[in-house]
C-alpha cells in the first residue's frame, strides 16, 4: 500500500510540529523518518496512524483518503518505543488481542499466533508475561502483535531506542529481513542516522517541522541538500572561505569546486567530512594546510585524529587503520592536511 501525505500541518499551541509537509511513500518500501527531537517526525508518524489529527492536509493510503478515519479503522500496525505491551496478558494473548477484538474464530487465532511466534523467534514463550521477557523480546512481541491483524501499513516509533547497542544491531538486521519477507509498507522513526541508513531503503531527513531531504540512503549521504543534512548525517569540518572560478579558497589553500564556474568571487562556507581529509608529512603544494595534532583516538575501526590549524580552527580527520599504520600519527606532531572533497551550499539565488 502506498502512502501519500499531502500538505500536512500540525501545531501544538505556539509550537509548529509540522509545516505543510508532503511526502510519497512507495508501496512495499521501508522508509525512515530521520531527525533530531522536535523535528516533527513522531508527530507525522502518529498522524499517519490516526493517533493524532492533522490541522490541515490529508493522508491517502492507496489513493483513498483516510484523514477522517479513526485509528481503529485505519488498519495500521503501530509499534511503540516503550513497547506498550499489555502487562496483564501473556505473550500469546498480547499477540492475539487484535484478532480477539475482531472476534476471529478460535482455531484461526491459534494458528496465526503460533505462526507469528515462529516469525519473531519466540516459540515456546507464548505463556510468559511481558515482565518475564528481555527488552529485545518485548519489542519482538510488540511487532508480532502489530502484524497479527495483517495491517496495511506498519509504523514504528523509535523501535530500538530503548535497547542496548548489541540487541539494537541484531534487531535492525532482523527487521530488514522481516521486511523482505512480508513486504508490508513500513515507516519508522529514528534519530540515529546509522540506523536509518542501515535499515531503510528511503530516508527522509526532517528538521523543525519540515522535510529537508528525501531520497535513497546513498543519495542523501553523498548529496546532502542542505548544511543541516550534511551536519546531521555525521561529523563534519566547517571552513569559511571564498569561492571563485571553480576553486574554493580556504585560508592559504585552494580546493577544486567545479560546480561553481562564475568568475566573480563570493563568500562561502565549505563542509568537509573527516574521512575526506588526507594527512601528509610533507606539504602538498597549495592544497594542504599546516596543522598540529592534538589528540589521537585509535580505538575502533576508524582512527579519529583531532588537529588545530595555525589560525586556531579545529580539524577532525578520520583515518583507516591502513593509513594510520603508514603515518603513525602522534599528538604534538606537525602535519599537512589536504581536503579531498568539499561541499558548498549556496543560497538559491546564486545557484547555477
Amino acid at each position, binding site marked *: 500500500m502506498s502512502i501519500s501525505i499531502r500538505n500536512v500541518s500540525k501545531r501544538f499551541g505556539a509550537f509548529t510540529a509540522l509545516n505543510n509537509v508532503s511526502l510519497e511513500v512507495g508501496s512495499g518500501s521501508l522508509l525512515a523518518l530521520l531527525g533530531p527531537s522536535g523535528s516533527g517526525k513522531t508527530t507525522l508518524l502518529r498522524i499517519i496512524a490516526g493517533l493524532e489529527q492533522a490541522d490541515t492536509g490529508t493522508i491517502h493510503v492507496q489513493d483513498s483518503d483516510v484523514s477522517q478515519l479513526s485509528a481503529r479503522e485505519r488498519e495500521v500496525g503501530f509499534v511503540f518505543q516503550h513497547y506498550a505491551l*499489555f502487562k496483564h496478558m501473556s505473550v500469546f494473548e498480547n499477540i492475539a488481542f487484535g484478532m480477539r477484538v475482531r472476534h476471529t474464530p478460535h482455531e484461526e487465532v491459534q494458528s496465526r499466533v503460533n505462526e507469528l511466534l515462529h516469525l519473531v523467534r519466540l516459540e515456546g514463550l507464548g505463556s510468559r508475561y511481558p515482565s518475564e521477557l528481555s527488552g529485545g523480546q518485548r519489542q519482538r512481541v510488540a511487532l508480532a502483535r502489530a502484524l497479527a491483524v495483517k495491517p496495511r501499513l506498519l509504523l514504528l516509533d523509535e523501535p530500538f531506542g530503548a535497547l542496548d547497542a548489541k540487541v539494537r544491531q541484531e534487531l535492525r538486521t532482523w527487521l530488514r529481513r522481516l521486511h523482505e519477507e512480508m513486504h508490508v509498507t513500513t515507516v519508522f522513526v529514528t534519530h540515529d542516522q546509522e540506523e536509518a541508513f542501515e535499515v531503510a531503503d528511503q530516508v527522509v531527513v526532517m528538521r523543525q517541522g519540515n522535510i529537508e531531504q528525501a531520497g535513497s540512503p546513498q543519495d542523501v549521504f553523498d548529496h546532502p541538500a542542505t548544511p543541516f543534512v550534511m551536519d546531521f548525517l555525521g561529523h563534519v569540518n566547517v571552513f569559511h572561505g571564498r569561492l571563485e572560478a571553480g576553486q574554493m579558497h580556504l585560508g592559504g589553500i585552494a580546493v577544486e569546486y567545479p560546480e561553481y564556474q562564475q568568475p566573480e568571487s563570493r563568500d562561502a562556507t565549505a563542509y568537509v567530512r573527516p574521512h575526506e581529509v588526507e594527512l601528509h608529512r610533507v606539504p602538498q603544494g597549495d592544497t594542504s594546510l599546516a596543522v598540529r595534532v592534538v589528540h589521537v583516538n585509535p580505538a575502533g575501526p576508524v582512527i579519529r585524529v583531532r588537529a588545530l590549524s595555525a589560525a586556531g580552527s579545529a580539524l577532525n580527520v578520520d583515518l583507516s587503520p591502513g593509513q594510520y599504520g603508514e603515518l603513525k600519527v602522534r599528538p604534538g606532531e606537525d602535519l599537512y592536511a589536504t581536503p579531498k572533497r568539499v561541499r558548498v551550499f549556496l543560497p538559491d539565488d546564486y545557484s547555477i
Partner: protein
Amino acid sequence: MHPSGVRTKKSAGGLVADEPLWLRVLLIAAAYTVIGLLILVPVVYVFVQAFAEGWQGYVKNLWHDPDTRHSIFLTLTVAPLAVLLNTVFGLAAAWTITRFKFPGRTLLVTLLDVPFAISPVVVGLMFVLLFGMQGYLGPSLRQMGIKVIFAWPGLLLATTFVTLPFVARELIPLMESLGSDEEIAAVSLGASPWQLFWRITLPNIKWGLVYGIIQCHARAIGEFGAVYVVSGRIAGETDTMPLRVEKLFQEYNNPGSFAVASLLTLMALLTLAGKYMLERYIAQQMAATRENTES
C-alpha cells in the same frame, strides 16, 4: 564523633538501635498506651456493653425492635447504592481527568475534594435548602410525586455526596502513572471503547478500584452528619444505623444502642480486614513480578 566505619545495608536501616534502651522502651510503651486507651478500650467496651444482657438480649435488641431492624436494612441498601453510584462516577471522572486535556481540568480535580472539605452537616443543610419544601427544586419535584428530603432519595443523595471523592481519588494518580500507552496500542489494534475498558483499563486498575470501593463503603456506612439533617430521623422510615445508635442512646436504651453500634463496628472491622488482606495480596503480587523481572 564516633567512628562510623563501613555500614552494611542492614545496619543502615537500623538507626534506632543506636538509641538508648530506656528511650526505646518508653517510646514503644507510649505508643501502645495511646493506641490502647484511645482505640482498643473503646472498641472492646462497645462489645462489652452490647452483650451486657447476654446473647439473647443482644439478638433481641437487634432483631426484635422493628425500627432497629429497618435501620439496618436501610443502611445496607443506601450504602451499597451510594458506592455503586460513586464507582461509576469515580471511573468516569478519573478517565476524563487522566485521558483528556481540556480547559478547567485542574479546577475539576480541586472541586472533587469539596465533599471532603465541607462539613457533612453543611452538606445536609445544602440539600434541604435545595430539595426541601421551601427549596428551589423541592416543590416542583413534589408535584411529580418525588420526595427527596425526609425520604430515602435524600439519604442516598447525601451519602453519595459525602463519599464522592473516594473512588476517583484512588484512581486518578493510578491511571496517571499507568499512562495511556497500552490503551492507545489497543485502539490501534482495533479495540472499541467498550472492549478497551473491559480488556485493558479495568484489569490494570482493578486493585485500586477495589481499594477505593472498600474505603467508600466504610465511610458510607458510618455517615452521620449529612444524613442526620436530610433524614428528619423518622423511626422505621429514615433512620439509618448511625442515627439509630444516637437515638437509642438519647432514649437511655444503652444495650440497644450499643448492640447497633457493635454491628457497625463489626462492619468497620471487616472492612479493615478486607483492606489489610488486599494490601498484602498486592504486595505479594508485586514482589512476584519483581522477582520475575530480575531473573
